[in-house]
């Protein structure tokens, strides 16, 4: 039934294929009710032919045509309605604020990181410099003697005052003073047999080979 109703409208609107239209006309001839319905609708539809067409105001069409011409004369120009312009301005403002905020945040973050990096560097540098300074000060007189197991006394050291240009006389003088200085650092033993005098102490001897 619904299909028949739709076919009725399609027939009136001339949207049926010719063969379908012929079939529908045959059906109408057989069904008086259908014929009456179609004719009533056709009559109503004819009334719609009287619907008037209204032209827009001339100034409106002229304005639109001028807009179209302006658009083509400057392709980059975009015609935006006033409301849209307002909303676009808001978007631009929001975007600008966001961009400034993000930039500021990134810069702040970067400067913070730099400070953190610079602080340990500075302290490290200062520490190294201090150590170098100490080493330099110590290097002038830091001769630390030591004795090997054959009771041979060694001492070694560096001095900024010795270089390739130093004469042999001054070198030997320097060595003498270094030796003297090293000997001063040796401390005599107060109780040389302290370890061996303990009653329960057992003697032991370190042995080794030269191989």
């Amino acid at each position: 039934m619904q299909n028949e109703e739709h076919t009725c409208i399609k027939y009136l609107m001339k949207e049926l294929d010719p063969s379908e239209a012929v079939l529908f006309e045959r059906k109408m001839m057989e069904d008086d009710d259908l014929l009456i319905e179609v004719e009533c609708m056709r009559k109503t539809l004819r009334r719609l032919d009287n619907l008037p067409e209204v032209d827009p105001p001339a100034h409106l069409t002229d304005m639109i045509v001028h807009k179209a011409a302006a658009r083509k004369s400057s392709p980059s120009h975009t015609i935006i309605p006033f409301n849209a312009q307002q909303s676009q301005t808001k978007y631009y403002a929001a975007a600008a604020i966001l961009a400034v905020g993000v930039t500021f945040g990134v810069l702040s973050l970067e400067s913070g990181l730099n400070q953190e990096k610079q602080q340990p560097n500075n302290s490290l540098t200062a520490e190294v410099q201090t150590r170098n300074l100490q080493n330099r000060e110590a290097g002038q007189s830091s001769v630390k003697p030591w004795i090997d197991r054959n009771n041979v006394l060694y001492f070694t050291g560096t001095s900024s005052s010795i270089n390739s240009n130093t004469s042999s006389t001054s070198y030997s003088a320097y060595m003498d003073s270094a030796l003297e200085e090293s000997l001063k650092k040796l401390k005599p033993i107060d109780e040389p047999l302290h370890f061996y005098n303990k009653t329960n102490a057992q003697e032991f001897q370190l042995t080794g080979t030269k191989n």
Partner: protein
Amino acid sequence: MMLQKSDNISSKYEKLEDKELVHRYRKNGDEQAFRELMNRHQAKIYSFIYSMVGSREVTNDIFQETFTKVITKMDDTYNEQGKWIAWVMRIAHNATIDYLRKQKRFVDVSSNYDDDSKTDFYDRLPDEDLVSAQEQIEKDEAKNSLMKHIGELPEEQREVVMLRHYYEMPFKEIAELTDVSINTALGRMRYALINLRKLFEKEKEEKGKDFKYAE
């Protein structure tokens, strides 16, 4: 008679098809081509919008909005394979429906007319010198009642009737435009015709009663 058609459109442009006019405007920025397109279709588009919203002021706004979109989107969105008027009509339809949705109320066209819009509306119709004054009055009355009854139709039914009438749009396209099935579009058209018939009959009965009382 207040036809707005520009006189300076050459006959050359009048002979061209829409497709060619669109091509000329897009390619060369041919203002005359665009003006000819406007002249061909502006009345139908304007009438459709007017029949849906029933206010000249609002119609002017929607009409302007429609063509502003047409101008800005023509280079990007419009595919020359399709009918230009169908594309424009889609924009006009969407703008009209957007407005009606924003209003969130049923628009009674007859009650929404501006005070002077009815006379203004008919002032724009072509003069028919050969028609007698009595015939003209009767015609005007018929048109008046037709517009009034169309305004009384539900929005969905009125929409289908207007799209069909002004654009001779196939039901397949109407269905696509209004986002319903073809059967729904056909059904709406059928109910619109049934409702209009009822309204005309009711009007006829009331006139008959008035005539009786007058006697």
